[in-house]
């Protein structure tokens, strides 16, 4: 099925099951990347993806088509992810979980034929340092950074999603970059 966006929206508004599948098929990876970038938690990100799509489907009647469907989905995902961050219990867990346990099997396995063990070890170290540095960023700066670097959104699109000014996007993005740069200074040549 290759519906164009207005057709997809119209079918979603009619409660068409195939359209719902198509929506998820098209955007699940984008939505997951945003959720993961903000929460840095694979398990929570999966839940956020699920809840986000359900929310989108329940509220599709309110979608007026002034923004693109993907922008609307981004907004829902960002809100869901930030709400997740605000729940203090999870926040507590989030800040106290050791970095090593967060990999959840997603890191490259040592001993594969593709890479030397030493190189892999260094990459793992950089990845952990990056993960830690991302985690230490304020929520708003990290959200903007994720939307920019993983989705390649323009400042205007990010401003629209977060309901802030373009100038704020620029300054917070620069702040995030500066912080990450400082945190990874010692790995500069290996990145």
């Amino acid at each position, binding site marked *: 099925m290759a519906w164009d966006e207005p057709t997809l929206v119209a079918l979603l508004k009619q409660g068409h099951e195939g359209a719902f599948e198509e929506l998820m098929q098209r955007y699940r990876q984008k939505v*997951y*990347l945003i959720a*993961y970038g903000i929460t840095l938690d694979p398990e929570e990100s999966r839940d956020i993806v*699920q809840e986000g799509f359900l929310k989108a489907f329940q509220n599709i009647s309110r979608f007026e088509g002034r923004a693109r469907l993907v922008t609307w989905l981004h907004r829902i995902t960002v809100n869901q992810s930030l709400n997740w961050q605000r729940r203090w219990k999870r926040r507590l867990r989030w800040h106290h979980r050791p970095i090593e346990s967060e990999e959840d099997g997603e890191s490259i396995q040592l001993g594969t034929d593709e890479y030397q063990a030493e190189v892999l070890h260094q990459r793992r170290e950089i990845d952990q340092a990056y993960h830690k540095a*991302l985690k230490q960023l304020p929520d708003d700066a990290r959200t903007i950074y994720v939307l920019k*670097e993983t989705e390649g959104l323009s400042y205007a699109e990010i401003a629209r999603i977060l309901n802030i000014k373009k100038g704020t996007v620029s300054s917070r*993005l620069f702040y995030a*970059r500066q912080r990450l740069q400082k945190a990874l200074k010692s790995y500069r040549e290996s990145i």
Partner: protein
Amino acid sequence: MKTTPGNPTRCDHEQLSRYHDGEATSQEIRRIEAHLPHCPDCRNMLADFDRLGHLMRSHGERALAAADTSAVMQRLLTRRQQRREAFAGWRNWFKPARLFLPVTVTVLALAIYIIPQSFKIEPHGQAPSAIINSFTGSVTSVMLFETPNTHQTIIWFKEDSTAKGENDALQKI
């Protein structure tokens, strides 16, 4: 913010960040492009922005590869299916209930209108009510007439009785 030897323009790293994202104005682009050849700091910074962006994307890609979003999608579809079935179950339960609707309406109508009528239950203070007591004497009559709001006493004299009394008196004389 600083100037480098041989370069009159100042380093502006936030502007550089905008330049990296393709968000700088044409004036800023001209200024940065004139500045960069003379400033290794800014060139390094630009390269770092690139590296960090690449790191973010590869970090995300690895997370995505491990996430199995198709399983998430399947779980979501199953959940929706279960919800629909649950909703259908409720709808089936309500089907026979719909048959009782006219009966319920009739019973309610009876309760509200017909039953009070047949038992003569009248709402307080609405209909007129009167308690009448009257005393009839040989000369006068008295009637007590009461409504919920007023108490009236009506007294009247019997003219013929008066005449009869007068005749009696005359006869006695």
